[in-house]
């Protein structure tokens, strides 16, 4: 144990909880998904998000053992488990983003810490600070091209990639977990701005929001 304080920030399900977009849904609404919709936006709210810091070799074994997923071997790598519910993404040579179903993150952190013992590493729970959006539909990629400076062409952005980049005037993580689906990981405080941006830029494609 690395003398870090761990803290389970979740509590029982009876307590009301608000996603990063709660205010935005209230303020800007949720355009319906219709037959014209060429982009569909869906928030996967309240997931468990952990930032892992440390050496790849040290962490890889522990993550593999505890999560059943290895660290992505390459920069910009994203690995997703068979269920599609758990993923590990490379953020920097000593930093990974782990996303798991909401509520799993504390147990995961605890088990990782047990497994890593005295190694030098850090784990930070950031579940309250970010949320995950899914984009699907034939125009999803063009919507990303309107918004982000990173090249999202399939030849450059195959399934299994994830990058942190400039998105509109904020920062976002763009991920491609499958052929059909793009994901954005955005910060809570920028969520409303980015939601408004996506609705505005997506209006041309009759963007719909699934709740």
């Amino acid at each position, binding site marked *: 144990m690395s003398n870090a304080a761990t803290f389970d920030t979740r509590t029982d399900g009876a307590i009301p909880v608000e996603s990063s977009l709660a205010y935005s849904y209230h303020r800007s609404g949720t355009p319906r998904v219709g037959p014209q919709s060429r982009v569909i936006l869906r928030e996967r709210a309240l997931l468990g998000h952990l930032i892992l810091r440390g050496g790849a070799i040290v962490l890889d074994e522990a993550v593999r053992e505890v999560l059943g997923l290895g660290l992505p071997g390459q920069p910009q790598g994203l690995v997703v488990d068979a269920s599609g519910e758990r993923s590990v993404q490379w953020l920097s040579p000593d930093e990974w983003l782990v996303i798991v179903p909401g509520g799993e993150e504390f147990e995961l952190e605890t088990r990782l810490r047990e497994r890593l013992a005295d190694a030098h590493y850090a*784990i*930070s729970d*950031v579940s309250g600070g970010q949320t995950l959006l899914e984009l699907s539909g034939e125009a999803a990629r063009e919507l990303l091209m309107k918004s982000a400076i990173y090249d999202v062409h399939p030849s450059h952005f195959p399934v299994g990639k994830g990058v942190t980049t400039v998105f509109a005037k*904020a920062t976002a993580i763009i991920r491609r977990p499958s052929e059909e689906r793009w994901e954005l990981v955005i910060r809570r405080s920028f969520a*409303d701005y980015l939601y408004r941006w996506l609705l505005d830029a997506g*209006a041309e494609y009759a963007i719909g929001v699934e709740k």
Partner: protein
Amino acid sequence: MSQSKKQANRLAKGGRIDRSRTLSFTFNGQSYQGHPGDTLASALLANGVDIVNRSFKYSRPRGIVAAGAEEPNAIVQLGSTEAGQVPNVRATQQALFAGLTARSTNGWPNVQRDMMGLVGKVGGKFMPPGFYYKTFMAPASMWMTYEKYIRKSAGLGRSPMEVDPDTYDHLHQHCDVLVVGGGAAGLAAALAAARSGARVIVADEQEDMGGSLLDSRETLDGKPADQWVAQVLEELAGCENVTLLPRTTANGYHDHNFVTLHERRTEHLSETAPLVNGHRPVRSRMHRVRAGQVILATGAHERPLVYAGNDVPGNLLAGAVSTYIRRYGVAPGNKLVLSTSNDYGYRAALDWKEAGREVVAIVDARQAPAGDWVEAARAQGIKVITGSAVIEAKGGSRVSAARVAKIDIDTFKVIGQAETLACDTIASSGGYSPVIHLASHTGARPTWRDDLLGFVPNLVKGVQACGGANGTYDLGEVLAEGVEAGVKAAAATGHAAPAVSLPQAKTLEQGPAAPLFQVPHEKPTLRAPKQFVDLQNDVTAAGIELATREGFESIEHVKRYTAMGFGTDQGKLGNINGMAIAARCLGRSIPEVGTTVFRPNYTPVTFGAIVGRHCRDLFDPERYTALHQWHVEHGAEFEDVGQWKRPWYFPQTINGKKETMHEAVARECLAVREKIGILDASTLGKIDIQGPDAREFLNRIYTNKWMKLDVGRVRYGLMCKDDGMLMDDGTTSCLGENHFLMTTTTGGAAGVLEWLELWHQTEWPELQVYFTSVTDHWATMTITGPEARKLLAEITDIDLDRDTFKFMDWRAGKVAGVPARVFRISFTGELAYEINVQANYAMHVWKTLFEHGDKYGLTPYGTETMHVLRAEKGFIIAGQDSDGSVTPEDLGMQWAVGYDKPFSWVGKRALSRSDTRRTDRKQLVGLKPKDPKVVLEEGAQIVFDPKHAIPMPMAGHVTSSYYSPTLDSGFALGVVKGGHNKLGETVYLPMADGQTHEAEIVSPIFYDPKGERQNV
């Protein structure tokens, strides 16, 4: 409005226009008709409109000269509604649409009868280049009056006065090969690159791709050239790896193959974007392209010859004459004289003749022109006058005759008598200049080639030029060069291109061109009738000669003195001629006079397109806390702090009257001091710091000591830059032996995180520590006031006993059923708890606090009240009470400086420099106004001697100043020279209204100096 007129100059057949449909449009209040496929310019010419504008300086009547981006005269104001106004539209690039409404940009009362033209005629003599530098100087006081009148004649079009109804966006494109220009070279290059499988973008500025092939006389494989164009476009359109962008201008070529393409998506349809399925599409779109390889196939611009009267309507470029006839089915006149220095010009005469109009003569500057073109003209029975040129165009509102004479180019003389040929149109060609604008955006200077009489581009890495842009004009060679460029570019991006079989072009035998730019006149240039070089800015050959006489010898000087090339056409027609004239006057060669540098944009671009979607509500992100909706619903006024929207104060409506800020803040302050208030402090930056060397790191980055802070404790710290000046402050809590939570100022969060990483990554990589931002993860609610403990106790399982949960302790537990970390720290001086919960639970906790807090008088407060309360306690705000020139010692915070720490922490060394050791530095003190009713102005300057003459020595200024409802008086913080040793002394604050306030220097702690209240 008068009746529509017949299209007198429209030919019965030919052109790429749709004669089956008629479009009505209005120009200068007159109604006209044209066809789909027309530009505004071609439609005006079809209708016989000669005068399209008045010139900028001399107000001379001007007509259409060119058919593309190089047009200097036909600059119009578009728009039938106020919001739909578009200034300075080039008629040659504006597709005609039904209902188009345009006006000339100059001319009063109208372009036909312009009063300023008189002034230009009479006064023109008194307006040589730079005349304004030589006059309007006396008396000095009159300049602003003179200028008022000078400004009246400024400008071309006008800005709309209403907000733009249209929207714009950006598309971030990445490709292997970007081909700029969809003419012969560009299409050949695109074809080769496309077949390799490379990602290709082809951008072309015109309505249709094909470039000069759309009006070419030449054939490919024996068929009209535009058939090949159609075939290539069909193939490219079918390629998934190819993006075709017509109506798209590459306007800027930036570093590392970043090119901006401006795509006009609706400007050809109407003045504002038409609705599609209830959605208004973007008017234009900027493609921000990062290309692996760039191919510049931008073609060449024809140069006009410079002769007297060359600006009279009816003087056109030879190539433009061909374009109007062949592409638009318009013959812009009846009787043509062609003046040329080369073979290319002959096409205009042949086309004119084929259109059934009269060619009076071809006047060729060469002594013995020969070759296929010359033969063709002679075969048509066209008279060719050799060794001669049009030396002067006659006519007022339209050319009436051409004066033609033999000339000697070498001695720049007219030989013998001039002959006057009656005509209504003069076409001229001085040869072609490769369009090198984009290449020169990269900073690469072009090279002059005597054989081409033009500059060709020098190229940076990853770019090629082909076809006209490279000075290659033979169609067969152009196509071959295009393919070669396409193959090479594809290969450079890892794509092998299969062979491309090219259509056969007939190679015509051509003769060399004569180096003719300015045509001599019988009179010397300074005395001859005006010979225009830059039509838009009214720059004449005489003006250039005068500039060189006055010592302006570099072309950059000449351009600036005469304003040549500074118009909206950026000298596309005139610059090379101007350089040639300057070279002649100086007795130098063209490259010796200078080179020509172009800057983005190639053609002007709407601000809106550059701005894209980053305007109005999306101009800049608004960052919200998890409690934002509550604040909005409770009527908060917001303050911008960085990108955050923070509640500033919460005005209540009491007895039907909304509180003023002053009232609200007084109420909020008293609530905290007497009962309890609550602040959303979630915007503070929070950084999670873990690792065995975390303490050591904190010890180096903060000015104070961190080795002995126990788990469960919190400490305030100051952070300096290595110049010793305060950078940021905040508290850091020890969560575990190797685990800390740092807080930063709201505005400083990102900067501090990067600062920590900078030191860790560059100076101390050996320290084992990691930093992760958790700002957004935690919501922070501060409850503060005498009732804080009671309220919190109702909803928490944490033991709040004052002796076990002490000031500057933190504890974990549950608040309102939610796991929370509670920090007993105070920025108000009252008992205070900062409750941190995961942000998704914040609203629940906040609302629960209110459910329980009502009975204690729980009052939400904003940043203004926070400021008053902290200032009463003498707590600083970094960035308000400090400004980048303030040390911790200046702030009187030696208690937070660990002078004896073993490591020389960041900022320490600088504190012992001679200037930071001065005792008369500006130091933070309290300021008590002598009159308690006075609230000093923040930013008021402090002086010791208010009777001193101006300039009055200043000793400091007020950094924070408020009315304190608790003290019922004004009070302030400020910095004063040597202030720490001046307690009790009086300083003065002379104000703009003539009053001088007096204040006493006091301790900055105005309230509860012993700090007892935070420990109730």
